[in-house]
C-alpha cells in the first residue's frame, strides 16, 4: 500500500508443512526483491501450491516456533501481524476465487475494497486494472458467463487491483489458449518491473520467458535456485535434430568431427548430440549441400523439465558427500 517499498519485499525462512504424516514442504526459504519475477518450478505435487499458501497466510507453517520460521512481507511479520502484512499481498490461487454470480466490475470493486482501498481510489484502479488485463469489454458481464480465459484474467485482476508490493500467482497460465498465454506473460513481465512477482509453474518455457530468477522444487524441497539465464546454461543440451530427405548411412553422420552421438528418430530425422565446446552444425550444412543429402530441418534441442531435473539431481547427488561432511 505504501509508496516506499523496501528492497526486499518478501522473505520467508524455514517453512515446513505436513498434512497428517505426509510432509508437503520441508524447510523452504525464499527471498524476493522489488522488481523481480521469481518462478517456482516443479512437478505436480512438488509442494509449490502449499508453499504459496503459506506465503499468503492461507495456511500456517508447522512447528513455526521450533523451526524459527518467519515470513516477512515488506518487513511486516505475517505470522504475528497477519492483517497488516496481508495488505501488501495479492494472491491468485490455483482456482481463481471468483464469485460467479457477480459482475466483473462489482467483483473487482469488492476485491479492491477488501484490501482496504478507499472508495475514491477504487474507481480509478478499476479502470486501470481492466485495461491492464484486457477486460474493458466485459465489465458489466456476470463472471459465471465468461470463458475460462477471461475468468483467469479476472482472477489476475483481483490480485493486482490494489497495487500490492508482492503478487503471488499460482499457475497463472493454466488452461489458457496460446494467444492468451502470451498476453498474460507479457502482463506478468510488465508487473515485474514495479512489483515483486512470485509465480509457480510446471512449464520450463514459462520460467525462461518470464522469470528473472528460478527456484526448483522437488518433493517439498528447494533443490536449485539461480537466475533463469544461468539455469539455461546450466542445463543446456548440446545437440540438434536434423532432417535429411536423402540421408547417408548412420556411420557417416557419426564420423563427422565433434559429433558424440547420433540417434535415428525416423528414416529421415536424426538426433545429434555433440560436446558443448564444439558445434558441428555448419559442418552438417556444408556436407549436406555437397553430398546432396537434401537438408530440410535443423532444430536445436530444447532442454525439458526432465533434463533440468536430471542434471540438477545428478549434480546435487555428487555434492552430497561434501555437504554431509560440513553439517
Amino acid at each position: 500500500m505504501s509508496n516506499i517499498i523496501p528492497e526486499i519485499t518478501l522473505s520467508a525462512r524455514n517453512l515446513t508443512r505436513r498434512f497428517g504424516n505426509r510432509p508437503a514442504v520441508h524447510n523452504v526459504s525464499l527471498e524476493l526483491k522489488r522488481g523481480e519475477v521469481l518462478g517456482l518450478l516443479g512437478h505436480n505435487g512438488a509442494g509449490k501450491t502449499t508453499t504459496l499458501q503459506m506465503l499468503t497466510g492461507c495456511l500456517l507453517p508447522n512447528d513455526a516456533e521450533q523451526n524459527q520460521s518467519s515470513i516477512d512481507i515488506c518487513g511486516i511479520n505475517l505470522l504475528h501481524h497477519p492483517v497488516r502484512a496481508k495488505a501488501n499481498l495479492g494472491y491468485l490461487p490455483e482456482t481463481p476465487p471468483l464469485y460467479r454470480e457477480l459482475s466483473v466490475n462489482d467483483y473487482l470493486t469488492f476485491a479492491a475494497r477488501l484490501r482496504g482501498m478507499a472508495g475514491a481510489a477504487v474507481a480509478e484502479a478499476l479502470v486501470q486494472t481492466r485495461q491492464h488485463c484486457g477486460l474493458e469489454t466485459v465489465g458489466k458481464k456476470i463472471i459465471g458467463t465468461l470463458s475460462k480465459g477471461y475468468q483467469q484474467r479476472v482472477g489476475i485482476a483481483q490480485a493486482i487491483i490494489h497495487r500490492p508490493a508482492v503478487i503471488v500467482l499460482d499457475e497463472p497460465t493454466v488452461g489458457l489458449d496460446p494467444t492468451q498465454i502470451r498476453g498474460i506473460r507479457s502482463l506478468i513481465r510488465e508487473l515485474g518491473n514495479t512489483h515483486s512477482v512470485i509465480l509457480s509453474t510446471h512449464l520450463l518455457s514459462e520460467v525462461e520467458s518470464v522469470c528473472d530468477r528460478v527456484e526448483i522444487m522437488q518433493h517439498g524441497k528447494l533443490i536449485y535456485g539461480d537466475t533463469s539465464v544461468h539455469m539455461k546454461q546450466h542445463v543446456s543440451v548440446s545437440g540438434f535434430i536434423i532432417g535429411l530427405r536423402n540421408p547417408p548411412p548412420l556411420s557417416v553422420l557419426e564420423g563427422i568431427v565433434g559429433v558424440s552421438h547420433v540417434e535415428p528418430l525416423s528414416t529421415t530425422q536424426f538426433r545429434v548430440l555433440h560436446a558443448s565446446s564444439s558445434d558441428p552444425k555448419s559442418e552438417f550444412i556444408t556436407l549436406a549441400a555437397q553430398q546432396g543429402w537434401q537438408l530440410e530441418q535443423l532444430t536445436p534441442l530444447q532442454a525439458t523439465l526432465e533434463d533440468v531435473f536430471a542434471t540438477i539431481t545428478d549434480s546435487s547427488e555428487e555434492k552430497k558427500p561434501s555437504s554431509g561432511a560440513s553439517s
Partner: protein
Amino acid sequence: MIRLLAGRELRSLFAMPSTWFILAVLQFIFAWFFLARLEAFLEVQPQLAQLANPPGVTTTVAAPMFNTVGLLLMMLVPMFTMRLIAEERRNQTLTLLLSAPLSGRHIVLGKFFGLLIFLVVLMTGVPLMLYTLTLGTDLDHGLLLSNILGLLLLTASYIALGLYISALTTQPIIAAIGAFAVLMGLWLADIGAAAENSPWHFISPLNHFQNFNNGLLDSSDAAFFILFTTVFLLLTMQRLHNNRLYG
C-alpha cells in the same frame, strides 16, 4: 470491513433467482396464514364479545402468526446458512477472504449480519400485514414489539448455529441437513420432555421464544439468545482459524 462483507453477501443473494422465488413464496404463505387467522377470528368474534375479558385481535391473530414464522424459520434458516462458508470453501473463494487483510472476526460477523439483514427484510411482511389491522381496530403494540424482538433474537441464534455448521463442511447440502437436524432435534427434545424443569427446555431456542410470543419480556430469555449466538459465532471464528492450521 464487516459492512463490506455483509453487502457482498446480500448482493450475491439478490443476484440469484432462487432468492426472489423463495421471497415471493414466503410472502404468499405469510399472507395466506394471516388471512386464515383473521377469518377464524371474525367467525368467533360475536361469541368472544360476550366474554367478560375477551382476548383481542393481537392475541388471536398476531401471536399465532409469529409462532408459525418461528417454526418456519427452522426450515428456512438452514437453506440460507448452508451456503455461507461451505460454498465459499467449495468454490475456493474462501482463499480470497483468507488472503485479504481481514481477521476471522470480520469474515464471520460480515456473513452473520449480511444474512440477518436479509432475513429481517424477508420477514418485514409479517408485522406490516398485522399493522394493516390498525385501520379497523386497536392493536396491542407491546405484544407486537415483544414478538418482533423475540423473532429477531431467534433468527440471530439460528443463523449463528447454521453458520457454524456451514464452517464444518465443504458440502452446502450437508451443512443444510446438519443445521436442520440440530434445530429440529432441539425443538423435538423440548416438546417431548415432560418434566417442567427438564434441561431440554432450557437449551431449546423455541422454548425461550414462547415467553416473547406471550408478551413476556424476560431478561434471562434475552440473555440465552445472546449467549447462544455469541458462542456459535466464536466457534465459527475458531473453526476458520483451524482451517489455516490444518488445511
